[in-house]
C-alpha cells in the first residue's frame, strides 16, 4: 500500500496571498526561510502537507525543507494552542525565577513540553529572551507580554483567556 500520510483530510489549502507571496519569492535566491515564515504566519505551524506543497511550488526538495525547518527553533511542525504561551528563559528571567514559572504554568495547565491542552487553548514554549529583560521574569500569552510575574498570578492570567474561549 502506498504511503498515505500526505493525502489526508488536512491537506494544506494555501490562501491566495500565501500563494502569491511564494510566487514572488521563489525566484529569489535564498527564499526558503522567508516562505516558511509566511507559511507559519498563515497556519501557526508548518504541517507535512504545507511542506509538500511548498516543495511542489518551489522545486526545493522536501528533505531540504525539513532540514531547514528542524534546524531553526522558530519553526513548529505541530499545531500550537490558540493562546500560544511563551515563558522567557533568557538569563535575566532565569535568575529571577523564570524556571519556576514555566514549571508552575505547565502544572496549572497539566501539559508537558510540546503538548497542547485538551481544549486546544494553550501550549507552552520556553523562549530565549523576548528582549524585555527590565521586566523579568516575563511570560507572553498570545502576543501579550506579562512582566515582573510571580507564580500566584499565573492561574488568573490563564483564566482570563479561558473565559474568552
Amino acid at each position, binding site marked *: 500500500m502506498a504511503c498515505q500520510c500526505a493525502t489526508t483530510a488536512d491537506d494544506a489549502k494555501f490562501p491566495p496571498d500565501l500563494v502569491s507571496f511564494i510566487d514572488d519569492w521563489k525566484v529569489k*535566491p*535564498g*527564499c*526558503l*526561510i*522567508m516562505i*516558511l*515564515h509566511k507559511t507559519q504566519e498563515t497556519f501557526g505551524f508548518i504541517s507535512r502537507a504545507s511542506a509538500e506543497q511548498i516543495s511542489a511550488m518551489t522545486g526545493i526538495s522536501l528533505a531540504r525543507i525539513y*532540514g*531547514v525547518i528542524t*534546524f*531553526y*527553533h*522558530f*519553526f513548529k511542525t505541530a499545531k500550537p494552542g490558540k493562546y500560544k504561551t511563551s515563558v522567557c*528563559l*533568557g*538569563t*535575566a528571567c*532565569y*535568575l*529571577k525565577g523564570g524556571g519556576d514559572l514555566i514549571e508552575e504554568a505547565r502544572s496549572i495547565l497539566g501539559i508537558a513540553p510540546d503538548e497542547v491542552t485538551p481544549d486546544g487553548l494553550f501550549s507552552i514554549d520556553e*523562549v*530565549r*529572551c*523576548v*528582549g*524585555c*529583560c*527590565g*521586566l*523579568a521574569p516575563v511570560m507572553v500569552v498570545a*502576543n*501579550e*507580554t*506579562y*512582566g515582573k510575574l510571580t507564580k500566584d498570578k499565573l492561574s488568573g492570567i490563564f483564566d482570563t483567556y479561558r473565559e474568552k474561549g
Partner: protein
Amino acid sequence: MGFTLEELRKFRAEKKAEFRNLPGRTHYILTCGGTACQSNKGEELFNALNDEAKKQGLADKVQIVRTGCFGFCEKGPIVKVLPENNFYVEVKPEDAAEIIDVNVKQGKELTRLEFKRPDGTPEPKAAKGGGHAELPPIGFYQKQVRVVLRNCGVINPEDINEYIANDGYLGLEKVLFEWSQEKIIEEMKASGMRGRGGAGFPTWLKWDFARKAPGDVKYVICNADEGDPGAYMDRSTVEGDPHSVIEGMITAGKAIGSHQGFVYIRAEYPLAVHRLEIALKQAQENGFLGKDILGSGFDFDIEIRLGAGAFVCGEETALIQSIEGNRGMPTPKPPFPANKGLWQKPTIINNVETLANIPVITAKGGAWLAAMGTEKSKGTKVFALTGKVQNSGLVEVPMGTTLREIIFEIGGGIKNGRKFKGVQTGGPSGGILTEQFLDTPIDFDSLTANGSMMGSGGMIVMDEDDCVVDVARFYMDFCVDESCGKCSPCRIGTTQILKLLEKITNGNGEESDIEKLDRIGKAMAKASLCALGQTAANPTVSTIKNFKDEYLEHIKDKKCRAGKCKKLLSYAIDLEACIGCSLCAKKCPGECITQLPDVPAGKKKAPFVIDASKCLKCGECFNCCKFKAVVRV
C-alpha cells in the same frame, strides 16, 4: 519623488527649526514606544493621551509622540513632557487625563508621577528648555553618553522627517558627494571603531578588505539577529532609530562598492521588524535608497531577511548560510566573508550598534568618536543592565567606564539590600567577573584579559542568592541547544560539560570533575570551528577560576550556599520559632508537613515538622513563613 541634495538641505533646515517648536503648540509629550514599555500598557497610554487631549480641547496645543526607548526600563512606561522637561515614571493609561490637565492645560508639574528617591524626595530634573534630548541628571543618566541611542526617546522612529531634522542623513551627504571610498575608510580608521557584535574587529579593516576584493557584486549585511539571552540593545536601536542603521548601511555600501544590503533580523522582534519596514519604505520614497541616491549616481537598496531563532546565526558564516536559505551552519574561515561571502561574493557583516555609530562618525568626523574611550577601544558601548540591580535598563557609557560606575552609580546598586556577587558579561560566550574587577575600566581587551568578553553587551548582575555553578549550567544548557552540531568539539564538548555540571549540581560531583571541565573547555576553545564552540566553555571555565570554593562546596560538602541547586537542599522547621500557624502545611503541594502531637510548654499550638523523604524541595514553605521558622539546611 526623492530629494536632491539642495532640496534635502533646505528641507532639513526647515524641519530643524520646527522640531518640537511647531507654531501654536505649547507642549510636546514623548511616550516610550519600546517593546518593554509597550507591553506595559504603553500602547494604551499613548492612545489615552491622544483621547484626553481631544476631550479637553487641547489637541492642537500638544503634540504627542511615540519615541524609542529611554533606557530606563525599570521604571517604565516613561513619559517626558516638553518644554518643561518633566520626566514621569511608571505612568499608567489612567494618568493620561491628569497629565493633560495639570501639565498641558495648567502648565504645572504633576509631582505625583515624577521620579523619586527611595526616601520619597524628588530627584533633580533637567532644566526647562534645556534641549529636547535632555534627560534628568539622575544617577541613572549622569554617567551616560548617548551616541548610539542619541535619537532613542527623542524622535518618532516612524517619521523620517524627525530623523532628518536631527541631523539625519547629514553624514551621508559627505559620503555621497565629497568623500572617496578611501576617505570614508580613513575616517573609520581615525574613529578607532571596533565591531560591537562581540569580537571587536576593527571596522575599517573589514571594510578595506571588502573594498579591495575584486568583483562588481558585493553585499552589506546588517546583523540584527540578537540572540544573546539578556541583551536587547540592537532591538531597541532598530525600534527607536532605524534610519541611523539604514544610513550606516548606505555608507558601508559606498565604502566597499556594494549596491545591495540585507538586514538579517530576528523574527522574535516583530516591533523592530515593523519599524524597519516603515523606515525602509520612507527612505525609498525620499530617495535615500534605490537608484541615484540624492542625485549622486550611487545606487543602493536594502532587503529584510528574517532569522528563525538560531543563536549560531550570529556567527558571520552561519548567518550567510541562513540568508542563502540553508541550515545556519558555519563554514571554515578562510575564505573570509570580505572575500567570499554571500553567494560567494565579497560581503561585510556589521552589527546594528556598529552601524548606528557610522552616521555620527561621518557627520562629526572620526576624531570626534576617537576622543572617547580607552586607548584601544573608542567610543561608547551600550549595555543591557539587568539581573539583581535596582535600575534595570539600557545604558550607554564611554568605553573605559568601570563596572562599579555602571552597576552602583547608574544601576543604583543591588536590589533588596543584598550583596553583590558577580556580573556576567558576554552572555553564553562570556564569563562572570567578581568584586575584585569592579574598578577595572571596561573595554574589549580588559574584559578578555579577565576571562570574559564584551560580547553584544549583556550585563547581568548577580547577588548572593544566585549560584554560579547553576548559572554555568544554565549557559551550557543553552549552548547544547544552540550548537549546530557540525563540528564535534562543540557538539560533544558542550554535552559533556553539561553532564558534568548537572552531576555537580545534583550532588554527585567528584573533585576530578573540575579538572575534566577545564580540560574539555580548553579543547573546545582550540578545536571548534566557530566562535560559538570556541567560547562556549567560557562561563564554566571563568566560574571555576573565580569561584572555585563554590564548586568545591557543591562537590565535597554537597551544599549550595545560594540555595538554588534543589537536590543539595533540604528544608527543616525550627521548632522554637514555629508558632504552629499551619500556613506552610496548607501551602505544601507534597503534603509532607504535619503537626506534632504535643503542645510544648509556653506555646499555644504544637509546631510542625517536614517529612524530608516526601519533600519536593519547592521552597513554598520557606517563602510563605512569616516567622522565619522554615530554614534551609
